[in-house]
């Protein structure tokens, strides 16, 4: 049963049209703005032009320049401005053109947005939307998956949906969250996925993983675009009689440790697949968490499959070699099953 059906069973009815991942986000933004007039959009070229990926297209027509705010080229400035607006009671949703450019506003995110509540108790309800991820031949400065850095910042939440349904549901939660949330939209998925979304308002809780496929031999823990590689690997191995469980963590911080540990306790073997590069990143925390929570259940070493520790190369053969591929995952699982 797919997640969509699961949720449908909870009484949602579905739109007739399918929506892409990108459309799901656009819908989520529009609906949030309609419901709550404190929600505003801030970013470069997001007004008339509709944003670098056209996610905000149309919002300015409905909500006007006052709530859909084009900014000068100044990530630190407009992220800081979003913090100020959030402190004054608005709910800003910031768009950076590529997740790579988050680095230009890093200090405002980690030292300002993330460190206010602990000291003052004041909420800082803001979302930063960041198109991340590789696969589009966009090279070292337009392909980054920087979620590992942000997960290591207390005070921030970090979200990375893999489906249209989750993208919209998590976006609604992020916008209603009283804390700063970094919302990674995988740009490779923007137009490659389609599904029917609920007509009704729904939210996905931040901090809740989803088991995308049940299995008994090995758990694959993953998120984002890698989910599809993992599912494909699981499908292929199924014909070999290997039963793979696939867990999509969906949010990186907070992490749904219970769901991860439960899966590993069931299977005893685990492969972690991330697009975040290998060392000192998300895969490391997943491995450490599993070691701590399920050590006695482990029937083999925790296997990490992640890109190498390099910038993200541009040329197709290099980028393909950089990204984890299905074969690497099937090989990893097969080896682990034989352990």
């Amino acid at each position, binding site marked *: 049963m797919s997640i969509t059906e699961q949720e449908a069973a909870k009484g949602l009815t579905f739109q007739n049209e399918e929506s892409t991942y990108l459309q799901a986000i656009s819908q989520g933004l529009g609906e949030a703005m309609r419901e709550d007039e404190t929600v505003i959009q801030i970013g470069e070229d997001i007004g008339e032009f509709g944003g670098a990926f056209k996610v905000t297209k149309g919002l300015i027509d409905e909500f006007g320049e006052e709530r859909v705010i084009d900014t000068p080229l100044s990530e630190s400035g407009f992220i800081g401005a979003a913090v100020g607006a959030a*402190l*004054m009671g608005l709910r800003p949703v910031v768009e950076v053109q590529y997740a790579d450019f988050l680095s230009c506003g890093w200090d405002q995110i980690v030292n300002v947005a993330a460190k206010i509540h602990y000291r*003052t108790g004041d909420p800082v309800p803001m979302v930063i939307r960041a198109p991340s991820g590789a696969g589009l031949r966009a090279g070292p400065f337009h392909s980054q998956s920087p979620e590992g850095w942000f997960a290591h910042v207390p005070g921030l939440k970090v979200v990375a949906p893999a489906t249209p349904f989750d993208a919209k549901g998590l976006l609604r939660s992020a916008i209603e969250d009283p804390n700063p949330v970094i919302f990674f939209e995988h740009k490779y998925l923007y137009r490659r996925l389609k599904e029917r979304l609920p007509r009704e308002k729904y939210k996905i809780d931040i901090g809740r993983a989803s088991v995308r496929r049940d299995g008994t031999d090995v758990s694959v823990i993953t998120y984002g675009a890698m989910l599809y590689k993992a599912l494909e690997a699981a499908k292929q191995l199924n014909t070999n009689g290997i039963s793979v469980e696939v867990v999509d963590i969906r949010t990186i911080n907070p992490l749904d440790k219970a769901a991860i540990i439960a899966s590993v306790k069931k299977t005893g073997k685990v492969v972690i697949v991330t697009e975040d590069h290998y060392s000192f990143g998300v895969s490391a925390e997943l491995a450490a968490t599993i070691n701590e929570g399920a050590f006695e259940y482990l029937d083999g070493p925790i296997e990490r499959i992640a890109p190498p520790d390099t910038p993200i190369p541009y040329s197709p053969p290099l980028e393909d070699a950089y990204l984890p591929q299905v074969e690497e995952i099937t090989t990893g699982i097969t080896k682990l099953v034989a352990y």
Partner: protein
Amino acid sequence: MALSREQHFDMYYYLLLGRALEERLETLYKQGKIPGAIYQGRGQEACYVGSAYALEPGDVIAPTHRDMIAMLPRGMDIKLIVAQHLAKVTGPTKGRGEDNYLGDLSRGIFTTVSMLPDFYPVAAGAALAFKIQGESRVALAYCGEGATSRGDWHEALNFAAVKTLPVVFFVINNQFAFSTPAEKGMKIGNVANRASAYGMPGITVDGNDPIEVFEAVKRSVDLAREGQGPSLIEAKTLRMKGHAGHDRFTYAPSGLIEQWEEKDPINRFEILLRDEWQLNDEEKQQIEIEIQMKIDGAVAFAEASPLPDPNEVTKDVYH
């Protein structure tokens, strides 16, 4: 805009309170009762009181490490200030934040961070919120001349100018950034000249004259409130102390401090009050006594306050 006698006395009160409170914090620091650092605005009291006094209740300020005195005319409870320095749980950050990085949002005072001047964009964002919500409120952001070299300063001024936001950028040019003299931080003499890069008014005022500061800030605040957008105001003064409590300001050119002592903003203002507003010794003494009592009370409160419970360390990271 002419200030009444009462308003003059009000400002005088805050000038004296600011100086006395900082002196007491210095004593506490020397007694080893402050685990962290102190940053003093001695000599700059006119900048703080003149500017903050030009605001209305709904307005907000974003002070930096040295600008605690600007909180006083906003009604900041000095008990909280002392408790913060003593790292007590009764401080506004419950002992989590350091030094002057404290505030009170209900009084429109941001609790800022050390990275300079990171709250310049934040203040612009507050002003953006005022504008969007159609509120007649203004934001006032502080920093020193040194901080104007940082990129966030530039991004904030440009953003505010383009969006015609109700924010006043107030730069205290106290001639030093830590040990760095202003001319090694920028090649131009007046920070205010930077305003033309953004298409906003830039004004230089005597930072040792509370009335001149007040009038300039009031004009800019009025402009901002009327929807005319941001201004940049530079107040010239001298930092009369070292950068922080441990810094003995050995690098001050000889004679400079003495020269500026003669321009002491409080002495100057007192002369004005005596000459024009009939301040007499008795009144002065009364004010001083009131201030001492208030500070004594705050120190007693802070000293009697408990330190935080170590179990609180992991609380409140998220809302």
